[in-house]
């Protein structure tokens, strides 16, 4: 009964929170666009459909590139790459961070010292520099490989956050109770500690998702993005490389960046909204 009541309360605040409503609507829009966008366009992202750059028209909704590719088609297919990077890259980062954070926070002591030091070391190394040098040596790069590497470098944030939370939870009575009754540590972590920080983990994942997207965009823009598919970062790279600026074809470089900004911005705002829903202290304003 009380469980049900609590759920209703969260739902009530979730529906009332305009930040959450706004963020989720934008996210939903982009998710729908990713799934149904390819059905809305008759072209392929690398298909030369006309001769040269034309501004947006009824035939080419967002205009065409200098090579005569349809910008709308590229954006829609690029969004797919963006979501893959966010989910796979953010997901892997989340997973590694969770494992490191739980172990460090739960066991404490020497294990914690070593893991924490390792986390801090990875945290100081600029992610992009490492990704640059790895990507430069790969001749053929796919979106999955890119996401994999991003995942392997973006976990320290999660590890830190999870460690701190686990640390504060592990000395609570119910955890002590479980430990005394001889429940094994894995079970304590997953059935006693983790459920108590679910809302927090959701927030962390959203930030990871957005971070992975931004990192991928930067990498793609420098020219180390996927070689076999289109992505939003690659679009911007091509636009700058082929002088879209000087030629004034704004419809080539505005949409991909705008989509990234709107998507990541929506993620951040959803994050704030959720935070307000979960955390009564922030709610009362």
């Amino acid at each position: 009964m009380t469980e049900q009541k609590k759920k209703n309360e969260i739902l009530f605040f979730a529906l009332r929170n305009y930040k959450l409503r706004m963020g989720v609507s934008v996210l939903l829009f982009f998710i729908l666009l990713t799934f149904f966008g390819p059905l809305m366009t008759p072209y392929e992202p690398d298909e030369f459909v006309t001769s040269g750059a034309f501004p947006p028209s009824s035939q080419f909704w967002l205009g065409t590139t200098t090579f005569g590719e349809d910008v709308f088609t590229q954006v829609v297919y690029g969004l797919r790459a963006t979501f893959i990077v966010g989910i796979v890259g953010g997901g892997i980062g989340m997973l590694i961070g969770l494992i490191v954070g739980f172990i460090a926070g739960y066991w404490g002591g020497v294990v914690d010292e070593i893991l924490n030091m390792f986390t801090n070391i990875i945290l100081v190394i600029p992610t992009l520099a490492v990704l640059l040098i790895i990507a430069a040596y790969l001749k053929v790069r796919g979106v999955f490989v890119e996401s994999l590497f991003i995942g392997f470098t973006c976990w320290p944030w999660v590890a830190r956050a999870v460690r701190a939370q686990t640390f504060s939870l592990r000395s609570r009575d119910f955890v002590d109770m479980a430990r005394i009754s001889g429940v094994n540590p894995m079970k304590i972590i997953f059935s006693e500690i983790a459920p108590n920080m679910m809302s927090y983990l959701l927030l962390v994942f959203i930030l990871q998702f957005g971070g992975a997207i931004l990192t991928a965009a930067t990498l793609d823009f420098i020219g180390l993005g996927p070689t076999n598919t289109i992505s939003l970062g690659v679009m911007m790279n091509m636009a700058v490389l082929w002088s879209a600026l000087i030629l004034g074809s704004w419809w080539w470089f505005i949409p991909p960046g705008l989509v990234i900004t709107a998507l990541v911005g929506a993620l951040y705002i959803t994050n704030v909204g959720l935070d307000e829903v979960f955390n009564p202290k922030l709610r009362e304003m």
Partner: protein
Amino acid sequence: MGRYFRRKLLIYILTFFIAVTLDWCIPRFMPGNPIDILISRAGLRGSAVQTMYDYYTGVFGLDLPIWQQYLNFWGALFKGDLGISIYLFPTPVTEVIMKAVPYDLALLIPSILLSWIVGNNFGAFAARSKRLDNTLLPFSYILSATPYMWLGIVLAWAFCIVFRIFPLAGGYSFAMRPNLSFAFIWSLISHWVLPFLSLFIVQVGGWAIGMRNMIIYELESDYSHYLKALGAPNNLIRRYAFNNALLPQITGLALKLGEVVAGALATEVVFAYPGIGYLILQAIHNEDYFLLQGCFLFIIVGVLAANFLIDIVYLLVDPRMRAGMQGETA
């Protein structure tokens, strides 16, 4: 305080060690062989290929045992020898990078410091004022979600192409040679404004959000409630909250460095600004791996040095650390 410093130093030394090892490992253990690339660039045929292959293997010391290669790498590093750039042959990589560094510093230092100051003050101002919180803060979130290079592209397009206020590319006018004249310095400044702005604007958003959240947290804490109960004026409570909230923001400065550096690299690509980001682009296009690895090491060393500097500042600013109490551990 001694313990704090020792821990930090240990972490930085370990980080440097890991970074150098990575820098050494990646070209050796990645698929593909840099020597093959060098030879294919030379366009050799027949027996010349084998001769050149042996020559390069000898020159780069790749015929030595692997531990010997590793030690040699460290040896060369301490002599400041990062190899010869292929793209700007025969300039040493160190020299190429040294020429680019001032441009990076000119972008990074002012943009980081100014955005930190402006963002923090703005965030503190907006916190707990309902109207600002609901209008300007979503805007800040969108700002901090903007990819640096895209903002750069948009600014470049608006101010260089549409309004023609600022020049588009380079560190100074292509028609000039570096000298100490007023015209040259003006040219430097006008080329610097837009890359600086694109870095500055994105960062302001992030700091404002961070500060706003910290202030709300501080205003909820016991000492604020106590002050309020004593009847202290709101301004006073806010000032205390601001001072307390500044400390985590200094730590945040260290944590955000990597991201800002990445942003600067991409921004330099947009404006063809002759810093390290632009060098990296050239290195990638010319398959100049020595230059690329040199840039990598340089970025790491720079970020480590900046981190250390921030640690010292933290030490000076935080009274708890000064008094030798245990502050935030590593």
